[in-house]
């Protein structure tokens, strides 16, 4: 596991903040320190508006890194992301990061199968880029509600990732769940040393976990949970993790995660 960089908390200006798909925005800002050291799967904790009734920060994975800039791709969920979506170029935000662990790439997969549901794909883009850089053969399975909400397909294709689509309404790609695409891929292709990397809604992650466990394929999940500090102190963000010696403990998504081994998660 790579050593993690020093965390910073800095005030920066929004460079752009655009609607890129129905209900989804891409925000770009300049954060040299964070851009320089973020590992795939790591996230930032964003203070959207100081002194407002919204007290806590909001966590988002770093979507891409370009020179001094980082982007985050986010879905409109509630008040926080709503306020965020109203920010314009020049507005300031505070960004804390890079936070959390990264994917375990100690055994080189072949192929790496990236499975993203909804905005979950945002947490896997830096991983896809890293895999491309390491010349790892990578497949991406991208699920979304419909064509209008489809995310990241062009970005993935642009870096040469073999990308497949599933939509709930069949408006593009496979009509059905992205996990069906995953099953189909595992059944129809001859895969040597596959590994799965997934992020998305809980239901999807549980299904992916089952597929991974049943087929014996190493599976890593980027987990989400409500966060207070994102620094490991409030113990608010935990998920239930099985211990090798039996029993379980609550581990912090912000510190021991967000990436967990699927076989360890107790749902």
């Amino acid at each position, binding site marked *: 596991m790579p050593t993690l960089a*020093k965390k910073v908390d800095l005030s920066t200006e929004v460079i752009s903040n655009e609607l890129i798909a129905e209900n989804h925005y891409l925000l770009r800002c300049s954060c040299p320190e964070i851009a320089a050291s973020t590992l795939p799967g790591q996230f930032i904790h964003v203070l959207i508006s100081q002194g407002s009734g919204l*007290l806590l*920060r909001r966590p988002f994975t770093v979507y891409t890194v370009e020179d001094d800039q980082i982007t985050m791709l986010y879905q409109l969920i509630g008040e926080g992301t709503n306020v965020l979506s109203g920010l314009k170029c020049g507005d300031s935000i505070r960004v804390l990061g890079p936070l959390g662990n990264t994917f375990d790439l100690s055994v080189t997969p072949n192929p790496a199968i990236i499975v993203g549901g909804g905005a979950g794909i945002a947490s896997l883009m830096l991983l896809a880029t890293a895999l491309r850089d390491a010349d790892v053969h990578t497949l991406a399975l991208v699920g979304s509600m419909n064509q209008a909400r489809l995310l990241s397909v062009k970005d993935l294709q642009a870096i040469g990732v073999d990308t497949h689509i599933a939509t709930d309404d069949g408006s593009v790609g496979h009509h059905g769940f992205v996990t069906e695409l995953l099953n189909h891929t595992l059944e129809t292709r001859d895969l040597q040393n596959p590994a799965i990397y997934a992020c998305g809604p809980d239901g999807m992650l549980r299904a992916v976990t089952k597929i991974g466990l049943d087929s014996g394929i190493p599976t890593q999940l980027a987990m989400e949970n409500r966060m*207070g500090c994102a*620094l490991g102190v*409030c113990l608010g963000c935990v998920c*239930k993790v099985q211990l090798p010696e039996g029993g379980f403990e*609550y581990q912090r998504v912000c510190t021991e995660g967000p990436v967990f081994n699927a076989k360890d998660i107790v749902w």
Partner: protein
Amino acid sequence: MTSSWQQKPMRYTWSEDEAMSDTHPSLEVTVADIQMKNPVMTASGTFGYGSEYVDFIDLNQIGAIVVKGITSVPWVGNAMPRIFETPSGMLNAIGLQNVGVDGFIDKKLPYLRNFDVPVIVNICGEQVEEYLEVTEKLDAADGVAAIELNISCPNLHCGGMSFGVDPKLTDELVKGVRKKTSLPLLVKLSPNITDITVIARAAEDAGADGLSVINTALGMAIDINTRRPQLANITGGLSGPAIKPIAVRMVWQVYNAVSIPIIGMGGIMTGDDAIEFFIAGASAVAVGTANFVNPRASLDVVEGIKEYLEQHRLHSIAELVGSLEIP
């Protein structure tokens, strides 16, 4: 910012000291025999064991570090979800997940000993015996500056808060712990009570050296789509600016009821917030939820206090404590 405490030569007489502090107010305070460079502590459960914040602040510059609540054996904590944001506040029901007193002494305390900052250990339990056991072990350990007795955790099914709302139980518990240690003993009070001064006096009479006012207010939130509680524990503790007016009121009530010092907390985000608590009667303050919003919050509060003292030409915190003027 290095505090004026570190620069002040010991030979200065009082009058020289006074003259000097016109431009450099002293932030140094001694509260319940705990000597601090400044009156700003971190609130228990909001600063981990200190190490988590070293990327952002020099721990030596904090008045005192109060660590997460410790119990006799490790606790696994409550199920998820454990936190929820509310207007200008947050609910938490962590359930005191912690490494236990032995784990704390073995794994956490050695790191904290590297710093020149008082470490105050917040302790909790379901039975008096557990509190006593933890106290004995901490008393014997090296590097503990004081004990903060949490009799007000709203997230425990038995123990915890039930002590904090019953003067007899408070008396029994504080007396018991008092016998087991000569360390300064702070008692942390619950706001979920009709008359906080009753418990404050019980704790004082039983031998507490200081009072921490307040712990979180019991609250609840519901997901209207699933009709389930937003916290697995159903209810949780409300913290943050939302509760500041309640906290200031309680500090003022307690100040008028006891003569031991008060550590004020509840929604402190800035130096100005801290000043409000001093005027209400607190001798020191603790910064809690603010740490989650701004990892430098505790030092920003120190800085803000210093600026206020300078602006108002005050020499020390003592001049502010309980200085509320009632026209």
